[in-house]
């Protein structure tokens, strides 16, 4: 499995449709304080199936909808799409045969949630199942959040197991 690109529209400060193409090797993301770098991290965690809005600095998912700025009005929904290269068929489950998988997550201002895999509506569970056992599920540590680097060392010995169970 390889990540191809992430697309966001109406997600936090990314009002306009924005596309991040993932390169092989090391990609650096830079910019001044508050410009939106960690918001990209939040978008990725969200589309991978993060269930706690608090983990993404919100009280609920509705907080992730672009709330307006200057002359720009608040938007009606937030949407994030992750496009995955599955040509090695490492994804288990009903989508194992697809060479490319697109996962989309949306939240509307009235709180309505929508989930899609390859444009077909599904449940959040179906999205989370795609990433189970890939190292990219919520149990893994593939996304190290700002300021949380100490979390593994500060955790209780029992809490650290998730990291090892994911690799085993």
């Amino acid at each position, binding site marked *: 499995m390889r990540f191809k690109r992430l697309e966001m529209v109406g997600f936090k400060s990314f009002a306009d449709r924005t596309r991040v193409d993932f390169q092989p090797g090391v990609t650096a993301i830079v910019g001044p304080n508050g410009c939106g770098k960690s918001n*990209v991290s939040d978008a990725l965690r969200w589309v991978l199936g993060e269930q706690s809005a608090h983990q993404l600095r919100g009280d609920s998912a509705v907080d992730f909808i672009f709330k307006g700025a200057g002359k720009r009005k608040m938007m009606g929904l937030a949407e994030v799409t992750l496009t995955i290269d599955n040509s090695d068929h490492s994804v288990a489950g009903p989508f194992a045969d697809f060479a490319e998988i697109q996962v989309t997550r949306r939240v509307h201002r009235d709180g309505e949630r929508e989930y899609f895999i390859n444009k077909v509506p599904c449940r959040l569970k179906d999205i989370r199942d795609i990433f189970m056992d890939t190292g990219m599920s919520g149990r893994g540590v593939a996304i190290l959040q700002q300021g949380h680097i100490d979390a593994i060392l500060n955790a209780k010995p029992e809490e650290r197991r998730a990291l090892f169970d994911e*690799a085993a």
Partner: protein
Amino acid sequence: SRERFITTFEQIDHHFGELFTALFEGGQAKLHLLDPDNPLESGIEITAQPPGKKNGSINLLSGGEKALTTLALIFSTYRVRPAPFCLLDEVDAPLDDANVGRFNRLLRTMAISTQFTAITHNKSTMEAADALYGITMAEPGVSSLIAVHLEEEPQLAMGEAVAVG
């Protein structure tokens, strides 16, 4: 499954010790099962001793030492089972110049089997990257992403990156 966990655990421990010693240019670190008779439920303890220092609780380690120890642990699981993708948000913030260099050299070896995205304010980390994206708010409150090309006109690109960073 119990055997598989123990085998994986020992492999991770092996790599953890190696990566720690590489990142710290010395010293030693180890993982321990608190309850070896019950490996599938047992908590996991970490001991880490930077070079020249006596062993102690990992709580006494410095901010930078804790960051490097955590990175050694996470990357040791990747050596056993690479994650396809990893996003690091300002993990280099507590590191001094020498350790940023060591971290980035390690990142480049790990990047053979994992796509890394590193959010950073650090110039050396930017220079070590293969690709660079800048995020700006030319319109207040609205983020936009620009690809900064490192191979073409690297001085100009770095200038842009420095200006935005």
